[in-house]
């Protein structure tokens, strides 16, 4: 079994509303999966379940073959799951570099005692600087993270995710709030990350970029997977068509 991230019949109910109703999904190593769905489809809930912020009523979440359903976020991160937030959450009072250094030092921060006994951070600083350069943030290292504009903060989120050296990275709307130029640059960076061998799960509203970059598309509606496969084939499926997009959007994405 080479699934990096696997959901097995995951379901959760909020006060009688079935937000996610039995989703099974296996993401294989090296895949680039786009996860889309209309508002209220259960995307955010599913992300929260994968991130460990919500416990599903039933079903299992597996990371690299290990059951992490009852593990908190930090444990999942240590098992190779990187997460970026839809709404950016940098440590504003730290420098851009320190934000990434801290992520690069996951080995040191695994327990308070270990952290107390570790001092040096030169290796992590060098790695962090490389990662910042790879996402196009070279030159901002010494600025306070709080002083960066949104476009750069979105990149910083990505850089922090990469710095933990994950097996799979879950990107929650990394393009939201960016203008067209910024968005395509950011999408290019993400495609680059995938080319270097990282498994990517991209949750995004920007259908154009999803269609252009993802190799596999999963469509969620009413808490169910209604489409899963090659993006164009999925979008051509009348079920997906009816439930989610009008014909106009598909042709827009294809153009």
């Amino acid at each position, binding site marked *: 079994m080479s699934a990096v991230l696997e959901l097995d019949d995951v379901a959760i109910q909020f006060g009688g509303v079935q937000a996610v109703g039995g989703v099974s999904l296996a993401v294989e190593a090296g895949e680039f999966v786009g996860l889309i769905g209309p508002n209220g489809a259960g995307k955010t809930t599913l992300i929260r379940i994968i991130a460990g912020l919500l416990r599903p009523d039933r079903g299992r979440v597996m990371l690299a073959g290990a059951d992490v359903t009852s593990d908190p976020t*930090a444990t999942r991160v240590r098992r190779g799951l990187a997460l970026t937030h839809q709404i950016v959450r940098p440590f504003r009072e730290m420098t851009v570099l320190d934000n990434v250094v801290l992520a690069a030092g996951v080995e040191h921060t695994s327990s308070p005692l270990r*952290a107390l006994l570790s001092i040096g*951070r030169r290796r992590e600083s060098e790695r962090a600087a490389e990662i910042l350069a790879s996402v196009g943030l070279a030159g901002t290292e010494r600025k306070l993270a709080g002083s960066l504009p949104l476009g750069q903060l979105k990149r910083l989120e990505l850089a922090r995710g990469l710095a933990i050296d994950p097996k799979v990275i879950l990107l929650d709307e990394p393009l939201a709030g960016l203008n067209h130029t910024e968005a395509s640059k950011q999408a290019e960076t993400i495609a680059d990350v995938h080319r270097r061998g990282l498994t990517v799960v991209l949750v995004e509203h920007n259908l154009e970029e999803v269609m252009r970059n993802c190799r596999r598309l999963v469509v969620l509606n009413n808490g169910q997977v209604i489409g899963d496969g090659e993006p164009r084939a999925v979008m051509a499926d009348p079920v997906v068509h009816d439930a989610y997009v009008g014909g106009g959007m598909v042709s827009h994405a294809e153009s």
Partner: protein
Amino acid sequence: MSAYGISLVSIAGINVILAVSLNIISGFCGQISLGHAAFFGAGAYAAALTMIATANVPLALLAALIMGCALGIIVGFASLRVRSDFLAVTTIGVNFLFVGFVRKQGWLGGEMGISGIPATGFGATGNAIMIVALACMTIAFSLYMSRSWMGFAFRAVGEDESAAATLGINARAYKLAAFGIGTALAGLAGALYTFFTQFITVDSFDFVFSVMLLAMVVIGGVGSTWGVAVAAVGLTLLPEAIRFVNDYRLLVFGGMLVLVIRLAPGGLAALTRNLFARGKRV
């Protein structure tokens, strides 16, 4: 040095340990505690009982350290459950609970406190030297911690717990560690206080003292070990030097607290940094 001078040095040293240890909890890790005096008191009582039973100084220090730490970890568990502003309220409650509990306990001397605690045998000067040495060690430890990955992770937890979690940092473990270490040092300060006075009453460990300690942290500069240590010494000596400050201690400290928060939120540490930065520019 005069007996008066020695007692001033002793009290300043004890306050440095208390303020620097509170800074670990509230400054480094961002968990506002308004009950630090309770852990100080727990250490003092543990040391007093140990001294009466065994007259063994290292054992009394150890008992105080363990008592402060144990109580701190229990309260630390509360910090996992409540948001930061409620933590302040919870720790105030812990302080009142401590004072109220001790007042009613015959075996802890109740209202009268514990007197006739055996001396350490080091003399007043010896005690003062021990206190200053331990205060220096506390400062050194705090400086080291701030530079270590623990200090780094503390700052992350203090700023945004869920963002810290996405970097694989277990915020619960770190918050407990901050409480455990900070309160263990407060317990240690309690033992030193017991050695110094040989007579303790619960009134020395009340909420007002906790506020004074937090004032030292804020005035010194939240998160700055040196700033907090300097403020602890300064605020200990100020009432001795100026009669007016002694008479209106709470008024003066309260006023300074408000002024610092309003005009220089970074405290003494930030003021000095700015001064140096300006000096360089000129």
